[in-house]
């Protein structure tokens, strides 16, 4: 493989990476100028041709999503930018927003031109205070420079970007939950159909895109489709539903590694390479026992599966849900999977919005069972019960509205399927991770 030059992260180490001046010095807003010279349909076609898939987790083809908008819609169309990056282990959007906000704003401007939207909402999770401040500054600069506002550079095109800070809920990262939250309501995901592209924010057609996706749009316009498609994992000929994975991807590395961080690499790098080459190896000279391939809702890769290529289709071939956000979390061999799984379940029980029965009750039930196992009161049949509960949750069996429940169930299914001997040993030997006193306190 030839030496890879980061593109999305190319500017993050520069001293004035956040300023409009610096961005323009590096050729910034050239892609937007180019887009303005094109018809919206041509911009959309370019994105469709690039086979860009959404970077937020689901991997839905971005250009295709744009084409779902009603044709010649008379009223407003909105773009909602999903910067509610809450998947544990994921921090690529944060780096993009904090270090290179104009790349994102340019992507937003291009996308709005393509979908004929005059209003973009940027939904930033509450915890990303610095992102908010940096972006607020950048948006202000753009207004001052005439890159946003009314009649941009005499083209007759209008665009307003509104920043919106969430209030701290994982579910706001689900696109319809995000829309509800933007409307000022409780972020309960909506039933689909209608999909947001038909009826979204304020019941108007709405496109929801991830931050990294829009940054890719900027680069596709700037560097062309061929450049983007030169980095690829081609579609699996045996799987007609696999459209392939193209372009650069930001991989987040965290957990038990020597050098956690975010790296930009072409699609299809393996977890082993990420750990050993880019993450500086597992810490304290230990070995990796399990790796989360893309945020904890995607499940676990076992130590044998570390050579799985991390493209959109790769993790699915070894029983994980998918690539997700491409955020790997490394678990070393000294860590109990019971504790790891408990932590996952605790997170999802805390973040379940509580709308659908299976998720509301199931996530907490799984947490309670694992809590009991950690207290030394587990029984072997608890593992079967966990698998059964996990199996009856989520949109894959069809029992919930959104995917949070699948995400909560998948690590359980994966962990118990792949690490069952360890769970059985833990239970059989009567081990415990918490003291009786802690157990008494562990009510929520």
């Amino acid at each position, binding site marked *: 493989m030839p030496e890879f030059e980061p593109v999305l992260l190319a500017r993050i180490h520069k001293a004035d990476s956040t300023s409009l001046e610096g961005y323009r010095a590096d050729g910034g807003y050239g892609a937007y100028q180019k887009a303005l010279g094109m018809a919206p349909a041509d911009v959309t076609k370019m994105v469709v041709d690039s086979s860009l898939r959404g970077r937020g987790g689901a991997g839905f083809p971005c250009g295709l999503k744009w084409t779902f908008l009603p044709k010649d819609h008379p009223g407003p169309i909105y773009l909602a930018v999903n910067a509610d990056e809450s998947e544990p282990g994921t921090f690529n959007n944060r780096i993009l927003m904090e270090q290179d906000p104009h790349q994102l704003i340019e992507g937003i401007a291009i996308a709005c031109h393509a979908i004929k939207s005059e209003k973009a909402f940027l939904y930033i999770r509450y915890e990303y205070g610095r992102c908010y401040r940096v972006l607020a500054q950048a948006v202000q600069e753009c207004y001052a420079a005439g890159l946003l506002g009314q009649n941009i550079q005499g083209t007759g095109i209008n665009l307003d970007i509104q920043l919106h800070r969430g209030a701290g809920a994982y579910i706001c990262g689900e696109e319809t939950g995000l829309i509800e939250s933007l409307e000022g309501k409780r972020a309960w995901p909506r039933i689909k159909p209608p999909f947001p592209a038909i009826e979204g924010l304020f019941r108007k057609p709405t496109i929801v895109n991830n931050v990294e996706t829009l940054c890719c749009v900027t680069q596709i316009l700037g560097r062309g489709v061929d450049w983007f498609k030169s980095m690829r994992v081609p579609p699996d000929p045996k799987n007609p539903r696999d459209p392939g994975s193209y372009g650069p991807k930001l991989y987040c590395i965290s957990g038990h590694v020597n050098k956690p961080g975010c790296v930009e690499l072409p699609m299809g790098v393996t977890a082993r390479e990420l750990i050993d080459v880019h993450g500086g190896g597992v810490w304290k000279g230990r070995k990796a026992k399990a790796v989360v391939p893309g945020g904890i809702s995607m499940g676990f890769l076992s130590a044998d599966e570390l050579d799985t290529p991390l493209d959109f289709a790769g993790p699915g071939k070894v029983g994980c849900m998918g690539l997700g956000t491409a955020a790997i979390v490394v678990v070393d061999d000294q860590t109990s999977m019971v504790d790891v799984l408990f932590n996952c379940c605790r997170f999802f029980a805390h973040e379940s919005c*509580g709308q659908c*029965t299976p998720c509301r009750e199931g996530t907490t039930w799984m947490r309670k069972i694992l809590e009991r196992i950690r207290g030394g009161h587990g029984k072997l049949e608890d593992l079967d019960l966990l698998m059964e509960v996990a199996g009856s949750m989520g949109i894959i069996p069809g029992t919930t509205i959104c995917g949070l429940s699948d995400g909560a169930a998948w690590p359980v299914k994966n962990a118990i399927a792949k690490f069952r001997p360890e769970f059985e040993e833990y239970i059989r030997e009567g081990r415990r991770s918490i003291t009786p006193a802690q157990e008494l306190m562990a009510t929520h």
Partner: protein
Amino acid sequence: MPTALVNQKPVELEPGERLNCIQAAARVGVEIPAYCWHPSLSVVASCRMCLVEVGDTKPDGTVVMQPKLVPGCQTPVKEGTVIVADSEKVKAARKATLEYLLLNHPLDCPVCDQAGECFLQDYSYRFGRSYSRLQEPKELKPDKDHIGEQITLFTDRCIMCTRCVRFTREISGTAELQVINRGTHEEIDIFPGEPCNNKLAGNVVDLCPVGALCSKDFLYKQRVWWLQSAKSVCPNCSTGCSVNVDQNEDHVHRLKPRDNPQAQGSFMCDEGRFGWKYLQAEERLTYPLQKTDTTDGIRDWTAILNALKQTVEQAVKKNPQKVAAVLSPWMTVEESYLLASWLKKLSSQVTLALGPVRVVGEDDTYPKDIHGQPVQPVKFTIRAEKCPNRRGVGEVLQHFAGKIKPFAEVVSEAAAGKYDLVYLVGGDPAGWIDDAQAQAFGQVKTLIVQDLLPSPVLAHASFILAGGSFAERDGTFVNHAGLAQEIHKSVRAPGNARADNRIFWELTGRTGLFHAGNLRKEIGEAIPALAAIQPGKLGDLGVLLTSTPDNAQIPVVHA
């Protein structure tokens, strides 16, 4: 005609009809269990109880099933839709959902008001598993007695269907109820200090599929399996909500709305829901009385009715122009027909008039906006006209008297000494005659008053007939829109009081027992405007009188 398949049974759909899977299945007797779905509320598809397998029939006749289970409440049925609601997959999903719902449910059925009419009980029995596999402690949530004057919340029994929340947002528009917290810690609650006291608040108790929201009025009064229901109509305004009157041992315990799209929909207001307490009032007239100079009076029905009959007949014979009867809008069609036809048979010159029609304020429509202003489209109306049968009695008067004489005219004529005998029928529990009006009837030589409760006019009456309330009678009420609905006797009148229909039946010299259905046949033949109420046509939901428009301008009394 489009056809869908539910569990292999064909379901015929009307062209253009929009049904979901639950409604389509109900048509062929297949019950798809559901908690959060309600026909009058928006669809949220969150309880996940109604999951079914759904497929489409392709043009070549093959059926393609969707791989996932889908909520039946949210899935429209169209030509060629195939619904499977009894497969192992569906049953397993229901079983799992019920287990989830019962995880934190306290299972306190023995002390729960809802037991016996609880969907959680019913569905668990039919679709659930017989034991819970939860070994950990249940979530404990505080009961909330403060959420409304009439309602209380047993938070731990709640299954988060959010029907109550959607009701206050979509039907009453007052939006007092909300969901607080997240995940399994979710609770229904109010904003502090803003209790759910709107005029439709009682409906959230009916909407609650479990025992979480309870009526304070009914709480711990009865086990529901002791109750017997009679189909009836709420008499408290001219909307004429279809209701069930629930009684045990001659004691009414509650009124619940009965679905009737032509009358009011699925709901009723609290004025009606709790407006039956006068049934058990201590002041109720419990015996008839013929005042005599010498003794305490005669209290025997047979003697009184015989004497009354003779008195009326003699008065009519003497001078029919000096005889008048006032028919209350609280009478049924049958009762007004019996009295009017009898008097008009004695002489066509007898005066017939309509009793006072009480009107309070303006029609109160829902939903309301945050300022309390009504919002279109109107989903529920509490009418200003506070009587059940102004139209029905009006049709009878129109037929027999040719016009509807207002009460005020009778009052002034009585004051002027025009009448020797006046037959006054009351029945409005909120009071229908004031002291001044009562004084006017002091001039009348023979005054007959038939009523439920004491009123000032009793002082001038020679005959006092203790009648029955709406729950104690059979008959027909016609609401504001001309919808004729049947009311059924639920309890016996207190003491020695008698249902009005029986009083009139015996007074008018008819033999045998009063039977509303037989009498409706006679009325339908005699009065063309009421032809629609002939037997067999009323059903449970009533029938619209189409023959005449609303009978003109009725003079009303503004209270």
